[in-house]
């Protein structure tokens, strides 16, 4: 009895002395649900936090006099945590970062380079790594945080679903970190923009950050270009591919699923070559043309046209990457690294430059799975 009492006392003491005493009621916390990084007019770092007001979220009262569900507080500072300290001065509850759903990066911030601020999110154990990350095109993070969401009570939780709804895997901070650590190439970040008139957000494609230049913004991709880029990267799950409809007087749409990408790196006497093979199968969901998917001949034509148009789009995207941005953001670097680890050591220094001169061939195979409920167009 005496022995066990001493043991219990020791255990209790060890818990108290090792600092395991951090009882805090949830209503003593200011729950940061979204964070934004901006560079303000004076060139200083401005951190904005979207803080949830739980009383405005939960509870049975959904009447018109319901409280606001969030508040956006911002402050400038030397770095993330310094700014956080300054945000804290405006709040009566302790900031709590573990539920941060979204990190937004203002365009100006992206232009100046993200390299410096990667550390905090990882180093701080109280910080959430599974925040989705977006670059705000033509705007500041604060603007987006202040928009009123349509469905969810909080914009930050909604942003993660935007990508899913578009058939992509959500791009989390931890993935950004994984992709930005290896040297060479560029990182593709999803981008978002604000509709000034409606105070709503828009998926704005993707932003290219150059890893070889302090993660500075190179340029943006249009939403459609970003789908193909994600397909090549293997992050796109589903995509609706439509033929332009010039031939046969009408467009055809295929909801492609099971998208696969295969990147082949070949090196021979002529130097390095890349071959990108994309494939997917899907259902024909719309047919405004005169082709009849129930006929094998027409079906082949549809498949061929469709693949060809997708191929053209991908070629255009690759040209944009090679000629306009001179940045490789398709994740090809990893394949080259895997296949030619020795050569990669010399290649990685200016992989973007090397990439922009590589000959690349593209091949897209789209196959139908289900012609749909009717035969020819009604």
């Amino acid at each position, binding site marked *: 009895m005496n022995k066990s009492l001493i043991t219990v006392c020791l*255990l*209790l003491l060890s*818990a108290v002395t090792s600092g*395991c*005493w*951090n*009882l*805090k*009621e*949830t*209503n003593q*916390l200011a*729950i940061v*649900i979204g964070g934004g990084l901006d560079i303000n007019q004076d060139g200083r770092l401005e951190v904005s936090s979207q803080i*949830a007001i*739980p*009383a*405005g*979220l*939960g*509870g049975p009262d959904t009447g018109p006099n319901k409280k606001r569900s969030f508040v956006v507080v911002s402050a400038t500072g030397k770095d993330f945590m310094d700014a956080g300290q300054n945000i804290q001065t405006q709040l009566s509850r302790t900031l*709590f970062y*573990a*539920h941060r*759903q979204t990190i937004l990066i203002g365009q100006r911030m992206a232009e100046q380079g993200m390299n410096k601020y990667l550390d905090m999110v990882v180093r701080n154990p*109280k910080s*959430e790594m599974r925040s989705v990350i977006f670059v705000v095109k033509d705007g500041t993070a604060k603007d987006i945080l202040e928009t009123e969401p349509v469905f969810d009570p909080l914009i930050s*939780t909604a942003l993660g679903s935007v990508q899913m709804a578009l058939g992509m895997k959500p791009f989390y901070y931890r993935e950004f970190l994984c992709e930005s650590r290896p040297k060479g190439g560029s990182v593709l970040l999803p981008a978002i923009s604000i509709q000034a008139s409606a105070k709503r957000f828009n998926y704005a494609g993707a932003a290219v950050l150059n890893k070889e230049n302090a993660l500075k913004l190179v340029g943006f991709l249009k939403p459609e270009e970003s789908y193909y880029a994600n397909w090549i990267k293997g992050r796109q799950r589903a995509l609706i591919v439509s033929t332009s409809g010039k031939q046969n007087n009408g467009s055809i749409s295929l909801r492609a699923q099971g998208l696969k990408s295969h990147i082949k790196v070949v090196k021979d006497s002529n130097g390095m070559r890349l071959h990108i093979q994309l494939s997917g199968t899907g259902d024909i969901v719309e047919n405004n043309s005169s082709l009849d998917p129930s006929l094998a001949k027409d079906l082949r034509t549809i498949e061929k046209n469709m693949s060809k148009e997708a191929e053209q789009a991908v070629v255009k995207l690759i040209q944009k990457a090679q000629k306009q941005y001179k940045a490789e953001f398709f994740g090809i670097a990893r394949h080259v690294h895997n296949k030619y680890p020795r050569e990669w050591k010399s290649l990685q220094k200016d992989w973007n430059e090397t990439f922009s001169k590589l000959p690349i061939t593209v091949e897209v195979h789209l196959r139908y799975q289900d012609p749909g409920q009717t035969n020819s167009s009604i």
Partner: protein
Amino acid sequence: MPKPSNEGVTSQVNPARTVSSSLKDNEQTLISIFEHCSDIVFRRVTLRDDAKLLLLYVDGMIDKDLVQNTILKPLLYEGVPQGLGVLSSLAQMCEMELVAALQTQKVSTFEEAADLILKGNVAFLADGEASVLLADVSQYETRSIEEPSTEAALRGTRESFTELLRTNTTLLRRIIVTTDLKMEPFEIGKFTKTEVVLAYIKGIATPDLINEVRTRIAGIDIQSVLESGYIEEYIEDSSYSPFPQMQSTERADVVAAGLLEGRIAVFVNGTPIVLVVPMTFWDGLQAPDDYYERFLYVTMNRWIRYLFALFSILFPSVYIALTTYHPEMMPPKLMMSITGLREQSPFPTVIEVFLMEFMFEGLREAGIRLPQQIGPLVSIVGALVIGQAAVQAGIISAPIVIVVSAAGISSFVIPRYRFGYPLRMLRFPLLVLSGLFGLFGVALGLIMILTHLIQLNPLGTPYLEPIAPTKQNKLKNVFLRRPRRRTS
């Protein structure tokens, strides 16, 4: 509780005295033994041939019809039968000829005689004889066999034990029809002289176990046994453990199943609750009809019980740990709604849970004790005052009500109601630990509970067997209820 009277003749009479041959002396002694016992009837009978008889019995405990028709009438009207040769004594005559009762016996001390009279025998004393003839004609009011009230089962027998030991052993005998079913009698309690029967199946129960239980029961020396709980307390291994180490049941089929598994049953007169020893942790989570229903349903039900048992012991403390120490472990939306509902509450979460747990235990206890007529009151007051008003007034936050009631209800999923007690009880230390140290405390508490469970070893059977120590062949019966044809 009867106290030996220390006045008058009683103190002078030594009950262990042997019966003398003088009826007058004997009568005097018996009168002094049964002084101030208004329910003892002395009936003096003089037969035709002047032979004097004294009949003694407890009023209300004997079958009066039987005594009148088969004993008194023949004696008074016909006298001593003639032509039967020489009978050595009147008592022998009565035993052989007249007393048509099933069980008779002859004793020679007043102590034995008094004991048997108090148990519903009729005593015959004849003039000139130094012995007492006792005939078992006991009959008294008892409860009839009813449906089990604490161990409901959808399938299986509807008969439950009664207060009468004989009825209970009969119920068992009717299930297990073999001479190997042994029933060893004991008499325990100075005042209650309670009959205790040790039942086991010879050849299935190990002799070591039988000996152990036998010596433990024989070693009991107490004044009274009012319920089998008295016996349980004397023969259980660890009195301080919160876990029951003996299965208590009011179902004959459960006892039979236990005996067939090599366990031992302890019947105690005066209670419908029979003890089955030894018990393991997993027995506490098995229902009587587990072996009657199809194995698929039973397996599912068992898992539900395991999960709810865990839930009932852990839910409140894990809730406290998550909300106050590790809010990052909750899904964000859940955390928001909990926080939103908590905004008004004046107490810390730990205090809230404590208050509600106490209320719940109070309601549970009140539910048992309240007279049936005001039973609904508890549910109304409980639901209204605690469920609604407290939340609406902002004194208790709504999630706490959900947590406490869910955990409380899940403890009643456990089929053996006694096994729910330790789970409900251990919730409180876990609450304190989680309120002090968060999940670390909960883990600490669980480790302590597990250590204790592993240490428990009632009657040589490890409490957590067959999980710890692992018994491969029995293991499957814990996780699944294997189909019977395959288990054999």
